[in-house]
């Protein structure tokens, strides 16, 4: 069980720092996290298109992460799997403070649905464009 006093949320200004601190854990499931990792890898050397990055930790253990990436005229919310819905809520509510308008969520089914529910709770409308398999 996670002791909530050890939980810390970090919003990153430096994409290289995000990569260094977050990617080692995401690489445990490289295919599942390929979108989040792929964009974060590019942003290390070219931050153009990087709109937002955050992560939540218990000590040094990653509990969840978000990358928001510009894709042409879209702003895509790319979540990595979270260990429980409360961590997703913390990440989402912190992201809301950024006032960045997103146009889509792309993620593994369970994680994307967790954030879809949070978005709808906050008055957003969502529509599934596409179901894919990785």
């Amino acid at each position: 069980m996670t002791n909530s006093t050890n939980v810390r949320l970090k919003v990153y200004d430096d994409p290289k720092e995000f990569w260094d601190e977050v990617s080692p854990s995401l690489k445990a499931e490289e295919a599942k996290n390929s979108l989040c990792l792929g964009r974060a890898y590019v942003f290390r050397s070219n931050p153009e298109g990087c709109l937002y990055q955050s992560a939540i930790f218990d000590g040094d253990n990653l509990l969840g992460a978000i990358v928001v990436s510009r894709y042409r005229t879209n702003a895509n919310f790319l979540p990595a799997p979270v260990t429980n819905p409360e961590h997703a809520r913390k990440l989402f509510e912190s992201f809301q403070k950024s006032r960045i308008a997103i146009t889509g969520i792309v993620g593994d089914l369970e994680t994307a649905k967790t954030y879809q529910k949070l978005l709808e709770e906050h008055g957003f409308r969502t529509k599934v464009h596409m179901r894919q398999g990785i």
Partner: protein
Amino acid sequence: MPANIHFRKAELRDVPTIGEWIEAFHEEATPHDPPVNGIELAEAKIKNNMVFVLERNGVLVSMSCWTRDIETSCCVNLVYTPKALRKQGFASIATAKLTQLLLDSGKSETNLYTDMANPTSNKIYQEIGYEFVCDSIHCGVNGPSH
């Protein structure tokens, strides 16, 4: 692979065809996304050695591309064969050849996103050796203005 079929890296002379195919791919596979400038994208991806093509008797018949390089792995995408040339195994060869090339270059794995509603592409990818990892969705979001 038949002797008249040749797999190679795309070159700048292929930009007009690849550009047209990229636009056709997006219209077919991701109609909800903003339209792409196929020529610009083709030129950029070819310059970065990310586009590969299959030729039959010297004529382009299929393409496969790769993206999201994270050193240890990458993603195969934009697998496209024009409708008139489908059901002849071109996409399967283009995907298998590119996947092998990426693995031979040192990637420990490659991944790809496939439309779950398309049984043909799913069957092709599994025959090549891809394993299902998880379901994924793309949701459009419209929200309260800030």
